[in-house]
């Protein structure tokens, strides 16, 4: 029997400050990048026209660009897409030209057609995908994506408040908010295109990270009943260590599938797979280093009734000696936890 991290006893919480530093570094870099370059929104969000073209022979991007300039389609983005003979051409709608260009899809398509006739030769290329969105729709989508993330936080908060306690819910949601920010920083640093699929990936990361946090919190809730003498600091460490084998296994299988998607599933899915792969890391990280310490912090600040608050206060000195008046229920009560509120 292989046993990874069985009876592990790492002091995870001790390293929380270093963990904060790492995540702050990623986010700062991301924020900096975001301020300079901004997010690379897809046509769905900005409005504009996209054409995906496959050519029979390799045509240099510079040549296509020249031809596009020649037919008056300036400022279009040209990228190879997965292979040397596949290109994506994007003509975004800028705010100034929005009204004029709004209905110009066919004009753009025709201009690209002329340019390709000139650079690749007629019959040497094939338009495999076109997409044209008015800016109005893009605005709506941005609003909806934002709404989806905020709504999911809200619903989770309510669910966790009902199933656990509001302190757990808040800690889980804050950890997840961290994941969203870190993921946005990652998207910005990698310069991934923000499309609807990527927004979907961010929301999946939200779900996955919550899932992971809940598994640990579930252990915490159980251990709080089981070990009446330990303080919250120790309980958190214990719970993280106990769930460590599970974390390694589940993250392992999930990473296996996202890596398969990343490498094999093609260009369209790649941004999604990148976000998910990063999301698994940040989700795991935040469950341990954000959710747990924040729970500690919240319990310190607004101590819950009963044992939990006392334990949290005791966490200032991470010793197994219970401090304070410790209004603990009869010692070592393995019976269904009598005084823990809001289960």
């Amino acid at each position, binding site marked *: 029997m292989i046993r990874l991290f069985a009876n592990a006893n790492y002091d995870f919480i001790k390293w929380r400050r270093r963990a904060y530093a790492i995540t702050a570094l990623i986010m700062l870099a991301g924020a900096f990048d975001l301020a300079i370059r901004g997010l690379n929104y897809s046509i769905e969000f900005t409005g504009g026209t996209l054409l995906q073209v496959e050519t029979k022979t390799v045509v240099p991007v510079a040549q296509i660009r020249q031809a596009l300039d020649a037919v008056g389609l300036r400022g279009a983005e040209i990228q190879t897409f997965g292979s040397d003979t596949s290109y994506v051409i994007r003509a975004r709608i800028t705010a100034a030209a929005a009204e004029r260009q709004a209905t110009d899809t066919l004009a753009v398509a025709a201009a690209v057609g002329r340019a390709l006739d000139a650079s690749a030769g007629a019959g040497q290329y094939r338009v495999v995908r076109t997409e044209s969105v008015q800016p109005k729709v893009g605005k709506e989508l941005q609003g909806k994506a934002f709404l989806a993330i905020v709504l999911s936080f809200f619903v989770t908060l309510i669910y966790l408040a009902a199933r656990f306690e509001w302190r757990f819910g808040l800690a889980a949601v804050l950890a997840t908010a961290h994941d969203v920010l870190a993921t946005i920083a990652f998207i910005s640093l990698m310069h991934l295109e923000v499309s*609807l699929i990527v927004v979907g990936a961010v929301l999946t990361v939200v779900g996955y990270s919550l899932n992971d946090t809940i598994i640990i919190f*579930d252990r915490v809730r159980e251990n709080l009943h089981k070990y009446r003498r330990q303080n919250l600091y120790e309980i958190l460490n214990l719970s993280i260590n106990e769930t460590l084998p599970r974390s390694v296994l589940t993250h392992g299988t999930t990473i296996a599938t996202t890596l398969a998607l990343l490498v094999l599933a093609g260009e369209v899915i790649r941004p999604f797979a990148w976000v998910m792969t990063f999301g698994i890391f940040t989700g795991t990280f935040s469950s341990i280093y954000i959710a747990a310490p924040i729970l500690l912090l919240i319990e310190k600040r607004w101590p819950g009734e009963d044992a939990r608050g006392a334990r949290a206060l005791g966490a200032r000195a991470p010793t197994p000696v219970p401090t304070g008046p410790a209004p603990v229920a009869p010692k070592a009560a393995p019976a269904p936890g009598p005084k823990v509120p809001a289960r």
Partner: protein
Amino acid sequence: MTIRTRLIVIGALAAVSVFALIPRNVTQRVYDAGNGRMKDTTVRQVPISLGLDLRGGIHLALEVDESKGPVPDCADAIQRAERVVRTRIDEFGTREPVVQIQGRCRLIVELAGESDPARAKSIIQRTAFLEFRITDMKNQFQNALPQIDGALRRAGVKARGATPSAVSQLFGSDTSKAGRDSAADANTPGVLSSLLFQGQLPGEFLVPEEQWMVVDSLIQRPDVRQLIPRGLDLKWGAQVESRGARSYRAVYAVEARPIITGEELTKAQARRDQLTNQSVVEFTLSRRGGRKFAEETARHINDYMAIILDGRVQGQPPVIRGQIATHGQIELGTKPLQEASDLALVLRAGALPAPLTIVDEQTIGPSLGADSINDGIRAGVVGVALVILIMVGYYRLSGVLAVSALTLYCLFTLAGLAILKSTLTLPGLAGFVLSIGIAVDANVLIFERIREELVHGKSLRLAVEDGFKHAMNAIVDSNVSTALTAFILYLVGTGPVKGFAITLIIGIAASMVSAIFVVKTLFLIWLQRRPAMTTLSV
């Protein structure tokens, strides 16, 4: 629950799933292009339909066009437009077209397998409002021209372009001396009248092609509109005509009241006129419309009748030689027959209540879709193989149980997609692959619990029992919260993202059944078969 009942439940679930996934023959009513009627055909339908991004096609999102004036109730307009568009699309000949209202005021049209967006758009977007109006037989507009010129001169609009003398040279027309004489009286060429050349029939004027925009902006001016005689309208011709070396566009003064509209039309059919080699759309009016039409045409014998489609006069207005009843035709000149049959199609389906504008348009080539499917399946196979490797390598026999439950998981998820009639999109495919990695989480949680219980010195049976029981809380809480986020994604998302969310939700439900119920049953069978077993391969 005994093992027996458990097995029956699993068997029943699997049977239902397999049944849901069997391709079957479905009878559909489709449009027969041969004779223009609907007919029944039987098609073999695969239960999970592929999204446009996987099989290629056209996706359009349309809204009411408010650029030419506000539309008071867009929801109502879209609802009526949906019926018209659906009728048109049904005749278009696409298999399983999607026409649905999204939100309040948006119409989604999806045509799988089509690759000519221009044609699809022209059929969907065409308002197809047909009307017949008598031209200005009394030359009222022409008589009003001097006044209009005067008003324009007072407003400070300068004349430019051709001189009236050019007109007489060009056409040698003699029908309406009055108009030109009065313009000549003013000594300077009139601003508007200098641009209008008398046509061949009452109420017809020709404008040089390069100047029609100028004329259009002049006749749109409120002060000019006011001076156009009551009961008259100006309508542009649909085609550009060439006379000699120059091209002209016709503008017609027509009565504001149509003698009949396309609402009374029951049939329309395209045909090619053998004699003139012209494309022609023949139409038939309803009985009521026919009576009305006969009455009106009887009163207007020898008058000219303009056929106006979407505000443009089609061809040159013909003269009414005698009473016309229920049959008529629209001449389209040298346009291809395809265009004529498309016009016949939209006329049959009826007019749109308001013009529609396209806000989102996507075309995906079929080859791209096929590539996506292949790549997705390849990634899925490799991903699953890795998951199997990890699970069996780590948990040995228990891992084998989990993997066999994973097969049922795939079956249940696909069946769920089929039962909910959801379409499989590319993000959905990715979500499915990802969910396989996440689906084993419940088993991991359970197995780790069983190991812990064993370490605590519990007996095999008790460890298995307690392992399942204690892992339950974590599994339920984590899955419910994931399902909640997926549900929000479903509510807020559109198109492919919705498909992704559905796949995720079904996946969660299926994984609960397979990882908990099925795996536990397998464990129970295992323990029953080996009562003497002292160590568990977990």
